[in-house]
């Protein structure tokens, strides 16, 4: 029997394929298509203390092999999530990673505290959303990020993951080390890239916030490089996210040192993408006689 399981700190996943935050709702929608508990885990849409409406439209724009989104963290708020959505997710047997955004350092702590006493399996702190107006990429400020992680760590009995920005200091080793030092159990690299599009007919930016977040296959070579570097520099596990579309991409990330991968935009390219990747990984392990991901994790490091 092929064993795809993976251990991320205290958390065991049946396989290393995780649905990325914001692309998979709270798991209900894709469960119309397949048994989503066959995925390693599911990251929820970003949760905030209070319900948020998100950004005005348009919220989506296509780019070459990429997608710009400006959803702006629309969500029902953490309380509603815990009452309405989480029970359904757990009933379906899903491993739930609660993705969290705080509008202030304190809010991060508050949201994490609310989640810490629930049945979520881990908490993923998003410090890197490019879609909040007026908000600089918080990942760009090492000191503030450290405070956010400290606050979250204090509030959190669960495994704590921190999701980095792919640019600026957000991806720097220095920042990642600070996050590790504050007690995070894993880092996820990376979120979407700050990017934009202009409607040349209208002669203005497509998005009301001007900037939006770039995801999809286009960014894969960059996030792969970030994961490679981070997993060399850190003791804690690194989780790869950014442009992963097929099992070969997933293997690249694992060979670059990732413990698991998250699948975002690729769900839109093929709604069965997550399942197909787990299947592809199974065949790969079989064909290459790989007993455990440890056999090849980080094997591309030199």
């Amino acid at each position, binding site marked *: 029997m092929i064993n795809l399981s993976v251990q991320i700190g205290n958390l065991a996943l049946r396989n290393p394929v995780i649905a990325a935050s914001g*692309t998979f709702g709270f798991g209900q*929608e894709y469960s119309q298509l397949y048994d989503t508990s066959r995925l390693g885990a599911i990251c929820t849409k970003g949760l905030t203390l209070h319900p948020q409406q*998100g950004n005005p439209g*348009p919220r989506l724009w296509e780019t070459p092999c990429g997608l710009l989104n400006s959803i702006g963290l*629309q969500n029902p708020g953490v309380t509603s999530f815990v009452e309405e959505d989480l029970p359904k997710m757990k009933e379906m047997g899903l491993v739930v990673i609660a993705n969290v955004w705080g509008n202030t350092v304190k809010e991060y702590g508050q949201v994490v505290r609310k989640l810490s006493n629930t049945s979520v399996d881990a908490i993923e702190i998003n410090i890197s959303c490019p879609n909040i107006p007026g908000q600089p990429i918080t990942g760009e400020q090492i000191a503030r990020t450290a405070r956010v992680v400290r606050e979250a760590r204090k509030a959190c009995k669960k495994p704590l993951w921190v999701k980095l920005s792919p640019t600026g200091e957000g991806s720097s080793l220095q920042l990642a080390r600070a996050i590790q030092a504050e007690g995070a159990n894993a880092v996820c690299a990376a979120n979407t890239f700050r990017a934009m599009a202009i409607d040349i007919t209208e002669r203005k930016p497509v998005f009301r916030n001007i900037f939006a977040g770039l995801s*999809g296959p286009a960014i894969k070579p960059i996030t792969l490089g970030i994961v490679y570097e981070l997993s060399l520099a850190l003791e804690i596990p690194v989780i790869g996210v950014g442009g992963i579309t097929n099992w070969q991409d997933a293997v690249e990330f694992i060979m670059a040192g990732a413990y698991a991968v998250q699948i975002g935009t690729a769900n*839109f390219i093929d*709604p069965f993408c997550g399942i197909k990747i787990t299947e592809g990984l199974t065949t790969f392990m079989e064909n290459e006689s790989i007993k455990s991901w440890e056999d090849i994790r980080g094997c591309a490091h030199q």
Partner: protein
Amino acid sequence: MDKIDVRTAPVIANDQVAPDMFLLRVQGAFPAKPGQFYMLRAWGINPPLSRPMSVFDRTDKLLSFLYAMQGQGTQLLARLLPGDKLVLFGPLGNGWNQQGDQIALVGGGSGIAPLFYTAKVFGKVDVYLGFHAKPFLLRTFEQVAKQLYVSSESGENGQKGLISNVFQPHGYDTCYACGPYAMLEALRHPCQNAGVPLFVSLEERMACGIGACLGCMVRTTQGLRRVCQDGPVFRAKDVIWDD
């Protein structure tokens, strides 16, 4: 609800029925209610997103779409030849629910697409079609319409002007409309004044097509709603139009 699925189906025909308008037929038995749609693709990872298209017609043996060739996705669709493969994800959305006896369907531009199958299933409905240029597929629509009303800018094969000017709500129990925003807007007040419930099919850019990404929201009096999952059909009076 019918099970949502991704399937690959062979193209039977992909005929140009007007400049930039194509009728694409694929083989297979697909479930779908009037007003529902599928996400279509016939390419690899670029462009990344599939294209939402309403069901134009379906039988036990085939499914068809009527689409406007515009950007890169629909240009790739337009290149499909018989025997090529189309990837379909659906059926998606709520579709229209038949309500009342005297029904009017109003479509403008590519918004006429969902009306054929709707008329066929509902039976005995009046169909109003507004064209920008020369009207097309009129014989096809005649087969399923109780009465067919047509208008275009030139007035060819019908009346001259906007279909929203031709359509009079009085006497109908319900009106279903699909088309450009301006057309839907123009129908709202006459229907409201006549006390005729108006249902509109909306269009927004879509990524997931099933309600997971929150990319396709519309503001309604009940809050933000997902066009793909909660729609695409909404009661016109629930939609907040001053966007």
